């Protein structure tokens, strides 16, 4: 009786367990043998490979095509560059934006502006570069990415020389530094929605890995089954022949479309706002002779922010509000006068992509308040000015911009500038 009981126990529990363990071990060896030959298989030590690893590779390959929806969800306007292509001329008579925005150029750019004011006409050239390009080999993209801090540096000089009166002093040159930060921060609600969408996909993929792993272990021919699942063009008939049973993963495109939408919305939000630092340093006479005794050194530090919104049936056009607030220190050379002033402005801008450029128009108000009484003319303070701008692309990398400023209050000159902007086309690897 005891022997019969022991025999019954062995037949019911030990033998099946032993057979199961043998099947698992056999499947594991088969998975180790086939894994290196599967398409897309990374290099993994053999002893670390099992059918779960093979299943993970299979799930990755079967779900990868669904991620292509990320590209399809991108609106047409995303295919067009909207980066400004001109160097900064802000704060000079050649300013060709209603309100200067600290959005850096991508690589390098130049602007040549003809300026008209009460003092006559002149021309300013501005060249902008990204300092990372000066510090490292442009081909070493890792170093460029590490060193760059999303800024550009512009140098402004009068076109016909920096010492026209040959008195040994620089007539004028200016430096501009623009730094921009993305408008979407870590932890934002929109970013979290994208995370949730990807989390859902990852959770389903983990379940699929478990399903495929079990099916590989149960397969009549593990290696053939793995090859069929990891390859392209598997159908029910071939899967039944290789795996012994039809195997289909329930993959819903809806999950990937949800992710694509969440990503597009989050990036739209990131792209629609900016907060930037705007630093300016001028030496000489920024009025280019329009105002006597206006030579000096001028340092301006400020913040600029903006928000834009899509409009129109195709959502390609955008309108936005830009604003800036800064502190300006002036030290005049001829009178040894120093002063501080607050300056800033607010404006509206409308733009629409046109191939790789954009057509843009702006209208804004600028002010500068402060300084010593009686020196407003020399330090160019205590005024309120209305500015307008229009920018029209001429080619893929060049544009013509016109800027006009008229004072509403204060004793400062009206300004008209016509500028040619050119951006360096980026190499494609």
């Amino acid at each position, binding site marked *: 009786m005891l022997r019969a009981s022991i025999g019954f126990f062995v037949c019911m529990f030990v033998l099946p367990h032993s057979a199961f363990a043998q099947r698992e071990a056999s499947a594991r060896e088969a998975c180790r043998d086939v894994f290196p030959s599967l398409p897309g*298989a990374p290099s993994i030590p053999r002893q670390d490979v099992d059918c*779960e690893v093979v299943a*993970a590779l299979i799930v990755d390959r079967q779900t990868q095509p669904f991620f292509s929806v990320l590209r399809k969800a991108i609106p047409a306007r*995303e295919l067009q560059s909207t980066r400004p292509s001109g160097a900064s001329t802000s704060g000079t008579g050649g300013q060709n934006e209603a309100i200067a925005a600290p959005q850096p150029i*991508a690589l390098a750019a130049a602007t040549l502006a003809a300026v008209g004011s009460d003092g006559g006409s002149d021309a300013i050239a501005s060249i902008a570069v990204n300092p990372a390009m000066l510090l490292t080999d442009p081909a070493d993209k890792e170093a460029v990415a590490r060193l760059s801090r999303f800024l550009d540096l512009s140098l402004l000089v009068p076109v016909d020389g920096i010492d026209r009166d040959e008195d040994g002093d620089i007539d004028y040159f200016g430096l501009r530094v623009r730094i921009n930060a993305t408008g979407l921060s870590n932890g934002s609600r929109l970013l979290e929605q994208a995370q949730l969408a990807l989390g859902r*996909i990852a959770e389903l993929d983990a379940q699929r890995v478990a399903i495929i792993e079990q099916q590989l272990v149960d397969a009549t021919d593990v290696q053939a089954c793995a090859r069929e699942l990891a390859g392209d063009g598997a159908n029910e008939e071939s899967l039944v022949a290789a795996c012994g049973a039809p195997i289909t993963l329930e993959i819903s495109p809806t999950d990937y479309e949800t992710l694509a939408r969440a990503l597009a919305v989050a990036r739209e939000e990131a792209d629609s706002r900016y907060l930037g630092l705007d630093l300016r340093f001028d030496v000489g006479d920024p009025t280019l002779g329009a105002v006597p005794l206006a030579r000096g050194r001028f340092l301006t530090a400020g913040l600029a922010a903006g928000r834009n919104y899509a409009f129109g049936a195709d959502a390609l056009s955008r309108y936005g509000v830009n604003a800036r607030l800064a502190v300006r220190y002036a030290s005049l050379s001829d009178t040894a006068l120093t002063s501080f002033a607050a300056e800033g402005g607010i404006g509206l801008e409308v733009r629409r992509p046109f191939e790789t450029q954009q057509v843009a128009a702006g209208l804004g108000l600028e002010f500068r308040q402060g300084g010593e009484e009686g020196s407003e003319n020399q330090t160019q303070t205590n005024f309120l000015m209305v500015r307008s701008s229009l920018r029209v692309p001429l080619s893929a990398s060049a544009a013509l911009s016109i800027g006009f400023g008229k004072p509403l209050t204060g004793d400062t000159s009206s300004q008209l500038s016509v500028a040619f902007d050119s951006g360096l086309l980026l190499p494609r690897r």
Partner: protein
Amino acid sequence: MAFRGILRTGSDVEALFLSDVSNDGPALLLIALGKATAGADTDGDVAAPGGRARVELKRLERGFLELVLDVKLEADKGRLQLFADGQMRDDEAIEGDTRWTYLVKAQPGA
């Protein structure tokens, strides 16, 4: 190649995307661990052109890990790196949207 191999349970992972300064717009970096037990852990960050995005997950549980980079234009470039317990595991110059996947499992014999 999207499937990059195995990560060990209990490890801390950190991924960085170093955005090329010439890129046209922001890039979104997402990481998600689909746990074998159910649920998911996630993190996300944004990189401006020339900037950096960083995501991390600590004490990984068994499951399937997805790392997804979504750039503005397919021509946007940068460097994608993944570190496990402080050691660089993967490092690649990339162009366009990119997806890396990993299987998170225990060390054999653990």
